[in-house]
């Protein structure tokens, strides 16, 4: 009797590099290679298969950010550089994901400030960086060009390309050799379509990270979870247009009712557990970058991922 699991998969998730060290022409102290999976998450027999990365999300304009984070982190959130430094040195993130929320203000036009913000974050921490740009066609091109140029050589992950707006992000990524996040609304077919569009304008597969869009736990996560499983499954079966690593960011976790309206003494517990439960489940479904906003979630995820990577002893899957 054989107890081996053989799913008959022949394909591999493509690899993507995040960040560039001196040797690769950047200034980051380390870089990551994600992807490379050949089976279901955490069933890899390779001992060196990567653990999911944990990204702390920060922003440059606070009114659009959850007060829970401000209360927890204190004054340092008023300086995006200080915040980035803390993400690295105090909170222990693997990646920093900078949201340029300042660009979401009405009639925003101060592009010069964007360059300064990106430079501040790059000098405050030497972790690889993810940047979320604007969400307004009138300024997108300029914003992404500015980010791309300011971080030239650093192998950023730039976000976010969507079916209706991908050209500005892609142009900046192509011009300065960054990778991009390709987001589709919880639908495997739309995810594939967008990747094909990106391919057609010249973005290489190894420069794309799929964001299947993560609904918060209780608010759409049931769909996101299966979208991730399906993407991973299709990729392993051989669909090259879906064979990229995935990023999970349940950006509404801290604004949903259960967390927002928790008693003050319980708010951090609710916030971190909501992010943690989502992050672990998403990692089990195949996400390789897990984004959080509450720094308290990071050590919880770190500890769990370490144990999830521990091999299963004598009956390990071969």
């Amino acid at each position, binding site marked *: 009797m054989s107890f081996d699991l053989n799913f008959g998969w022949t394909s591999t998730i493509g690899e993507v590099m995040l960040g560039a060290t001196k040797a690769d022409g950047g200034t980051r102290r380390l870089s990551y290679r994600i992807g490379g999976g050949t089976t279901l998450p955490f069933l890899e027999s390779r001992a060196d298969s990567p653990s999911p990365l944990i990204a702390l999300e920060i922003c440059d304009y606070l009114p659009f950010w959850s007060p829970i984070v401000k209360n927890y982190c204190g004054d340092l959130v008023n300086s995006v550089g200080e915040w980035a430094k803390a993400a690295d040195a105090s909170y222990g993130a693997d990646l920093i994901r900078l949201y340029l929320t300042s660009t979401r203000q009405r009639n925003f036009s101060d592009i010069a400030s964007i360059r300064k913000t990106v430079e501040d974050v790059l000098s405050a921490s030497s972790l690889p960086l993810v940047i979320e740009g604007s969400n307004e066609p009138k300024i997108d091109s300029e914003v992404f060009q500015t980010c791309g140029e300011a971080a030239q050589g650093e192998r950023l992950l730039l976000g976010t390309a969507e079916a209706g707006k991908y050209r500005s992000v892609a142009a900046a990524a192509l011009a300065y050799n960054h990778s991009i996040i390709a987001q589709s609304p919880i639908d495997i077919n739309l995810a594939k379509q967008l990747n094909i569009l990106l391919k057609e304008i010249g973005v290489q597969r190894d420069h794309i990270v799929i964001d299947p869009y993560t*609904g918060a736990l209780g608010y759409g996560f049931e769909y996101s979870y299966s979208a991730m499983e399906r993407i991973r499954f299709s990729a392993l079966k051989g669909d090259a247009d879906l064979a990229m690593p995935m990023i999970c960011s349940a950006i509404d976790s801290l604004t949903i009712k259960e967390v927002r309206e928790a008693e003050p003494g319980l708010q951090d517990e609710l916030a971190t557990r909501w992010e943690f439960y989502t992050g672990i489940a998403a990692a089990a479904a195949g996400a390789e970058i897990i984004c959080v906003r509450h720094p308290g979630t990071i050590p*919880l995820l770190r500890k769990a991922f370490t144990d999830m*990577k521990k*091999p299963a002893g*004598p009956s390990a899957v071969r």
Partner: protein
Amino acid sequence: MALKALDIYKLLPKKNCKECGDPTCLTFAMKLAGGKADVDLCPYLSEEAKSVLGASTRPPIRLVRVGVGERFFKVGEETVLYRHEKTFYHPPGIVFRVRDTQAAPEIAAVTRRVRDETFTRVGADLRFSGIAIENTSGSAETFAKAVAAVEAEQAHLPPVLIAKDPAALKAGLVHCGSYRPLLHAANKENFREMCALAKQYGCPLVIRAATPEGLVQLVKDCTAEGVQDIMLDPAPETLGAFITRSTQIRQLAITRSVPELGYPVFLDSTLTGQQDAAIVLGIVKYASVIVTDPLTPGPAKAALTLRQNIYTDPQKPIQMNPGLYRVGTPDKDAPVLMTVNFSLTFFTLQGYLESTRIPCFMLIVDTEGMSVLTAVAAGKLNEFLVRDAIKKFGVENEVSHRKLIIPGYASPLSGRIEEATGWKVLVGPRDAAEIGEFLHEEWKK
């Protein structure tokens, strides 16, 4: 492998006696092939045919019930590895553990909490499933007292009795034996005594071994002793071990490659040293009973919500009843916001509207559970649907103005809705999170 109806038919007596309740042996064979009938209904089967059919027609994972009365739960009868292939049917029982070394009032308090605590979301009442009592003291007498303390609350919760020593279980069963408790756990040393207890009280039995070989051997031993209702505890030392073993069990069971593994999985989330993570992985990776220490509010709500999410049919959008809903107590001047009856859209928007503290009406139209984006693309959301909903739900009598706020993603319809309804249309934001700002800036003008 599953047998086809014709293969099954060949093994039947072909008498068409109708004693099984079916008109012919062929129709009975078709039912068997679909897992919709039991081989035992045929009185004329040879022993050999029975054993062949029994193994291949029963569900790949056995259905096991725990507890009796209103709060009983059943697990098993799952058919897929991925929920998108079909769905997951029977959500895991999440049971709170007490130890027999705890004082009786503490044990009673946990019991009452599981009995009473309800967390309501998306219109459903979510609850924890039962009480596990663990024989930490090593004394059968102490264990029996703890079980008695739980039962004294008259909570009628499904019990799980955890003890290494059959003598302790026996003492506990005196107090809850007729409530179909789950017994934990049989191993290769004690399985005979454990099976004797399970048979005596007619209750399900967990077997525990860290390898599939060990589990298969124990299943064979216990079924030979006459116990059918079995659960498998793969005894994971790490979270990785759980993912691997549980996936292995599920896959080998649903493909019928190893029929002996066709039983629900039991997980003690406290053993990995990382209870929260184990609960998450138990829910998404096929556990059917999850034992945990009583949870604080954060993990409690997150666990119940995740279980609800994962055991929602992924192919069926959850729908709200179309209608006119009130947020606060809106008056004749209150804004009216139209959106679709996809429940996530509804609850997300409702949450944000509540926090604006502006009383208003939500006009929910029937897009068969589609989101705004999908409904617009599919033409489900159109001006006539909106016009008819305004009439049907009497919106004109509720407000004195004629202004309708529509979702940002429905903006292509704004002109046509104005023509069809005669109402002035205001296009709201795409993201519900911005509705507060929108109402303050646009509505108040």
